[in-house]
């Protein structure tokens, strides 16, 4: 009796293990088993230089942030991966597609137990620093020299992912912050595109008087307000580098430029620029206000372009863009808030490091072409060959692309420059300005205290 039950038990355990394994292998490899792998006439650029023991089955996990199947990036991802698997029948790319927040959390958990996926996503500069300190990623210096990959990237963009002379990640985007505006709502209120911050506050008041919500923002995700605030600071500081000066000990948050920025920012809030209940709107809800034509202006990174041009408000070229204006006559509108995108990094402890690097090389080489074809190429980090206008990109997309040509430097977002502890204190301090009027010197002091505590 006991023996029988034990046998039964082991059988059951075996079944369980099998079913688990079946779950684990994922669905991403089903596509290439059905198609004949013999077909080698690939339309896309092939990178790899031979058939290095192609009998060995290799699985590469590819953690990414393109889970939305309606997003052009998702289609692009699947297209490149499918093609690669077709060309390399022994390699399976297992996709782990997650939302941005989920991915951040998952990676931190994985990093804590040193189980980083073969390819994963990180954010630039300060947000990457802890991972670099923990020595989790493989340097990509040699890999980007292969097939001329390095030259496809815009000049200087890789600096944000370079530590101690090593490039550790390759960005999927390079964006700038712009102000989108709804032309018909501007017309209705009889206002023009503001050329100074003071005019902008005025425009806000006039829109408000007409019963139109002047600006939309999703301040529940507090980085949105911070992004706007940092642009004001970029102006009042007369140029980029305020936070760097703080880190280098040359300036303090109590600097007049910082206080001036707080005052200007508060004047915008006090003029009633933003929708009611602003801190309970998350990023998507805030953006939707603008997309549905319920708000007249929207300050955001140029990555929002694609979503806005296909939205209700963006029909018939109804949405335009303008540069963030000067504040109190200070600053240069050609300096932008820069947003080097999230980037692909390779785990140092990857079991198939060479194959992973080869794949990423192939992926990045084909990335510009495929995103261009999927109409998602506004604000990517690589140079694109192709006529945007002829490819059917909208006027607004063309406007944004032209702004890119005028960029003369700028600053990164706060949390890409400062350590996470200070960044969190900053985010909640700025969020507080949306619900309560506060003295600028008090805000500056909060920042300085938080910075010193987290140094």
């Amino acid at each position: 009796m006991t023996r029988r039950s034990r046998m039964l038990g082991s059988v059951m355990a075996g079944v369980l293990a099998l079913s688990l394994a079946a779950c684990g292998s994922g669905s991403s490899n089903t596509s290439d088993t059905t198609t004949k792998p013999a077909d080698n006439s690939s339309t896309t650029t092939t990178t790899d230089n031979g058939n290095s023991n192609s009998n060995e089955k290799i699985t590469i996990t590819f953690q990414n942030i393109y889970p939305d199947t309606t997003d052009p990036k998702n289609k692009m991802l699947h297209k490149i991966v499918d093609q690669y698997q077709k060309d390399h029948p022994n390699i399976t790319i297992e996709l782990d597609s997650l939302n941005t927040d989920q991915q951040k959390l998952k990676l931190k958990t994985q990093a804590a137990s040193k189980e980083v996926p073969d390819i994963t996503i990180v954010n630039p500069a300060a947000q990457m620093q802890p991972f670099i300190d923990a020595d989790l990623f493989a340097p990509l210096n040699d890999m980007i020299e292969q097939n001329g990959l390095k030259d496809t990237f815009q000049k200087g963009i890789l600096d944000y992912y370079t530590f101690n002379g090593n490039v550790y990640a390759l960005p999927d985007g390079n964006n700038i912050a712009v102000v989108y505006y709804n032309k018909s709502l501007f017309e209705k209120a009889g206002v023009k595109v503001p050329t100074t911050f003071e005019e902008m506050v005025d425009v806000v008041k006039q829109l408000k008087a007409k019963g139109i919500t002047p600006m939309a923002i999703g301040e529940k995700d507090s980085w949105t307000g911070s992004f706007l605030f940092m642009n004001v600071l970029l102006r009042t500081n007369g140029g980029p580098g305020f936070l760097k000066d703080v880190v280098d000990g040359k300036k303090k948050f109590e600097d007049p430029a910082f206080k001036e920025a707080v005052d200007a920012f508060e004047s915008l809030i006090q003029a009633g620029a933003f929708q009611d209940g602003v801190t309970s709107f998350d990023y998507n809800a805030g953006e939707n206000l603008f997309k549905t034509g319920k708000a007249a202006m929207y300050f955001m990174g140029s990555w929002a372009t694609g979503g806005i041009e296909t939205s209700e408000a963006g029909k018939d070229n109804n949405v335009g863009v303008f540069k963030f204006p000067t504040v109190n006559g200070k600053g240069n509108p050609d300096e932008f808030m820069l947003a080097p995108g999230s980037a692909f990094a390779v785990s140092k402890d990857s079991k198939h490091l060479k194959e992973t690097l080869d794949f990423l090389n192939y992926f990045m080489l084909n990335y510009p072409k495929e995103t261009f074809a999927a109409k998602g190429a506004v604000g990517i980090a690589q140079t694109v060959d192709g006529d945007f206008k002829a490819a059917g990109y909208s006027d607004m997309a063309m406007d944004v692309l032209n702004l890119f040509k005028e960029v003369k430097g700028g600053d990164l977002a706060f949390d890409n420059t400062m350590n996470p502890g200070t960044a969190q204190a900053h985010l909640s301090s700025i969020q507080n300005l949306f619900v309560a009027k506060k003295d600028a010197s008090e805000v500056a002091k909060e920042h300085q205290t938080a910075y010193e505590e987290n140094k």
Partner: protein
Amino acid sequence: MNVLKVSGWVIAAFVLPCLLLYVCLVFIPILVSIYSGMLDWNGIGASKFIGIANYTKMFTNDSVFWPALGRTFLLAGFSMLVQVPIALFVAILISRYVRRPNFLVSSYFLPVILSVVVIGQLWKTIYNPASMGGMINQILIGLGLDSWTHSWLTEPKVAIFAVILVSLWQYLGYHILIQFTGIQNIPADIYEAAKIDGADGFKADRYITLPMIVPIFKISVVLAFIGSLQSFDLIMVMTGGGPAHATDVISSHMYNMSFLSMKYGYGSAIATFLVFVCMLATVIINFLFNRLDKRYS
């Protein structure tokens, strides 16, 4: 104690799987988190042992910690002193005056089985400012009470109460179900005997239902208390702890510290504190109710 005529080993063998699971999933993580609470660690890189420095910082030098703890207890207080008594009252009414009570109890229970995200989104729309079509504000305006309107979730003083109300609403049905079941289990012959002695209606409730329900009531109170200490999801969905920490409770503060500020060690210290508060509270509540129990039996 060998009533079952099985050896201690057999009993041990049967208890073991569950015990192992419990130790692995509860005790070991608690121990690990006590240990990480003494580290200066960002969760990824190298860690440094710093003893109780995290705790001293938490108690003396964290401007968010004490208000967050206060809000946690505020929520617990509302839950124990408002929600559970209301639930008891409703349960008594239902069991006494409703002919087919199951349907009603199930309807009250409905919010409990809904996902918190759904509840959060639902109430966010209800709380919206009038300009965004928020229901409460529109009703208030409709009644001519314009001055009563608020941006419920974004005014720092009001927001926490708005969230607490939703939490009370959601779990009311849960406690009604518990109390209702408790009342159903009181033997009917006691009431019949009391009726003969002239104790009916309100009197019967006062002298029979209330004393007999004490053990069940205790379960409800403990669950309400622990549940409020751990409340997290609803706050994350509705306000994210904002505006500027105005609705942060202890567990959302823990999350922010561990994963956003990347102070994993500090977050673990808060978690450890939370575990001890939960244990202590359970002991205290048990002690109080045991005394109450003794008085009535």
